[in-house]
């Protein structure tokens, strides 16, 4: 059975993580699945403007950066109960389809299978969400580079909606056509769905196993290569710069 690399970065500064994320996509060290948990932070989507999307006066104690993929804000409160993942894969029209939505669906299947393990009714909601009973529990964002794709996503274990609303400038139009009365009703998280807190490491093990099953591969623990470390080092200043974050 084919082996792909697996890395668990643990609790990270999101600026460092986004530099490593980009380096894994661009260094060409083979298909990789990885986890991290962000410290208190906000990651802007590629096309978002900080001053438009955020109430910046309320964000002073957050680390803010931007990622290279589109989509919306990834917000992490200081509870740090989120599993974030990354997948880098070579587009092959089988495991990683060329069609964008099909490739989201394939990778989001790992989350759906994981939630199914906990007997939750999870489904893919195009373009890029995973929902439980029509409430978003996971947001995902993909970009492509040469023949490869990078998908990042989050599985919410716990989430402070009020805090997210406090720091955001979310216009009400966003949720109108989803016929959801408010953002509060449109989101959920695993602890709420299960009525208890499961151990994060246990959930990660389930996710890793579901990934192996879905992609028919064995995940082998590894590290960043020297090439990736060098590339990460050159990318770090970007993720720490105002020019990138507040452009």
């Amino acid at each position, binding site marked *: 059975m084919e082996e792909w690399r697996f890395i668990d970065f643990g609790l990270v500064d999101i600026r460092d993580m986004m530099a490593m994320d980009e380096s894994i996509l661009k260094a060409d060290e083979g298909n990789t699945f990885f986890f991290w948990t962000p410290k208190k932070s906000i990651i802007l989507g*590629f*096309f978002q*403007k900080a001053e438009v999307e955020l109430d910046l006066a309320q964000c002073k104690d957050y680390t803010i950066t931007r990622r290279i993929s*589109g*989509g919306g804000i990834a917000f992490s409160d200081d509870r740090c109960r989120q599993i974030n993942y990354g997948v880098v894969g070579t587009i092959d029209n089988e495991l990683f389809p060329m069609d964008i939505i099909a490739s989201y669906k394939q990778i989001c299947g790992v989350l759906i299978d994981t939630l199914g393990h906990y007997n939750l009714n999870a489904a893919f909601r*195009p*373009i890029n969400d995973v929902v439980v009973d029509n409430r978003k529990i996971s947001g995902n964002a993909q*970009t492509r580079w040469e023949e490869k794709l990078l998908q990042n996503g989050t599985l919410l274990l716990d989430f402070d909606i009020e805090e997210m609303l406090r720091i955001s400038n979310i*216009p009400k*139009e966003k949720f109108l056509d989803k016929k959801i009365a408010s953002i509060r009703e449109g989101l959920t998280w695993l602890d709420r769905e299960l009525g208890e807190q499961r151990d994060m490491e246990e959930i990660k093990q389930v996710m890793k196993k579901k990934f192996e099953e879905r992609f028919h591969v064995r995940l082998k623990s590894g590290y960043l290569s020297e090439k990736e470390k060098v590339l990460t080092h050159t990318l770090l200043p970007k993720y720490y710069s105002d020019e990138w974050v507040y452009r």
Partner: protein
Amino acid sequence: MFLNTAGANTMEIKTLQGIHKSKGGLIRSFVTVQNGKIKEISISGDFFLFPEEAFFRIVEEIKGIKAEREEVELKIKEIYERENIQSPGTLPSDFTESIMKALEG
């Protein structure tokens, strides 16, 4: 366009905001118009667009064109074709709609 009441004969150019939601995300446009042409524009949103860098072509090339729906949509479509843009759930007409909502208030 609004007359600036603070100074005689100075014209204040107001930045107008338009919000439109496509299936692929929310598009917020901020547009200033001068002499019937788009002078400045910025767009913020949670949509997806590949290749990402081509987005800057859209913003750059819309500047200077007539602030009319047909002109705006034609230009965006042209850039989509030339740059081979894919934006799942978001069409050139969605960007146009967001910009027109700003222009039409």
